[in-house]
């Protein structure tokens, strides 16, 4: 692995993103627009809006970065650039960390816009600070990137890649404690929920909502999410083959 090559790769991915103005606009505007929708759905600011909007600030970057990354990586495979890159001095982890770095920077900008809109325009109120919400959102985005890189190995077409959203992302959304508190789920369902990284991300955000200062539980949860992201990146590296049939 080389820091120089990883940074060059992240720079290249960001340059590709910069040429795609529509994607940049969508990345920046969509989460804030959806939060506004929530605001009106729940009849302006209030405890229900506070609870759901806070969780959504963590969910959006995860879902969006998962989708963007799995398509971007699939394009590398189908256009032959991946095969070519793997004949150069680039290490597999240079490519994967390059993606992780580029999209987590994009996610940081996206999360800052969404968090700014939520707190200042929509009157979101939490006991904890907005800064830590941005941090959790970025870690969630990295998890989305890592899972997207891993899942793209199992898709041969864009159609298949998009189908991984309901397979990988939706179960995590359903079981993360947003719809039914995790404590009220039956034992086996709680077990499944415990095994899914998004559950920890949501718990971390709930901790920010309830406590003025970062708690131990929140830091532990954040560590679990980051660990899951690193694990997914390593598994993604294992799916990259220099030789194919």
């Amino acid at each position, binding site marked *: 692995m080389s820091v120089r090559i990883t940074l*060059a790769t992240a720079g*290249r991915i960001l340059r590709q993103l910069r040429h795609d103005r529509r994607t940049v606009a969508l990345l920046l505007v969509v989460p804030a627009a959806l939060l506004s929708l929530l605001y009106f759905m729940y009849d302006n600011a209030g405890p229900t809006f506070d609870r759901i909007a806070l969780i959504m600030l963590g969910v959006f970057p995860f879902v969006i970065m998962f989708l963007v990354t799995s398509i971007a990586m699939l394009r590398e495979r189908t*256009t032959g650039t991946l095969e070519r890159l793997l*004949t*150069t001095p680039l290490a597999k982890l240079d490519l994967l960390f390059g993606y992780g770095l580029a999209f987590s920077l994009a996610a940081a900008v996206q999360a800052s816009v969404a968090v700014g809109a939520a707190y200042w325009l929509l009157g979101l109120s939490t006991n904890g600070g907005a800064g830590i919400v941005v941090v959790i959102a970025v870690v969630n985005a990295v998890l989305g990137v890592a899972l997207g890189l891993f899942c793209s190995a199992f898709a041969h077409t864009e159609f298949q890649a998009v189908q991984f959203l309901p397979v990988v992302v939706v179960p995590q959304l359903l079981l993360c404690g947003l719809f039914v508190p995790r404590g009220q789920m039956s034992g086996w369902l709680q077990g499944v929920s415990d095994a899914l990284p998004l559950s920890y991300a949501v718990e971390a955000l709930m901790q920010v909502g309830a406590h003025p200062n970062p708690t131990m539980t929140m830091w532990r949860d954040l560590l679990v999410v980051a660990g899951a992201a690193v694990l997914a990146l390593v598994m993604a590296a294992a799916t990259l083959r220099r*030789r*194919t049939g």
Partner: protein
Amino acid sequence: MEDAIQVRDLVVDRGGRRVLHGISCAVPAGCVAGLLGPSGSGKTTLIRAVVGVQIVVSGTVTVLGRAAGAAELRHAVGYVTQAPSVYADLSVRENVRYFAALHGLGAAEAGRAIDDVGLKPAASQLVGNLSGGQRSRASLACAMLGRPGVLVLDEPTVGQDPVLRADLWGKFHDLADAGTTLLVSSHVMDEAGRCDRLLLIREGRLVADDTPAAIRAATATDDLEAAFLQMIREQETEHAPQEATR
């Protein structure tokens, strides 16, 4: 002369079908070798084996004294795939600079490579907006960076205008004179005469491996296309009885 590329008894299956049936050949260092054959003859598979991205059934491929695909070769082998594998959503300059960075080279080297393939006027255009010929030249520029010891090009001249095609072949010979070994595939027979050595493959088997002059002499014809036709016919009559007894 030492061989830059050595292929021994190479057998490759793709998609459950045997594509290469035990090919052996060699490319001497510092020459331009043409890999010729019709579409579907196994050219791309042989090229993939040389750059080390192809899973092989048996046989060995050695490049610059090392097993094809070895980590040490990633600095030394340039590869241009048949479909131009460059980023369509980046400009020519951004593409070449990225590949230069992978080899530890700077913007000046990247600029020279763009100049070498005649894309200087289009350097700031998005690759996605270029013509097919320009796109494959952008891909070529990315492979020529840092003067690789071996340059493997899969049909680099398809869709290029005749003047440019002549320029590119001139460029290939310049590179060879400077010590680079080139393996260039083509399905166009009129490019055969521009090579120092010829490898002709057909249906996954090697039909000829010699210099154009030797092939012309052996078949007593000046026209390489006719020479190849004659060699294919001769081999078919030789192989026909064996095939029948299987």
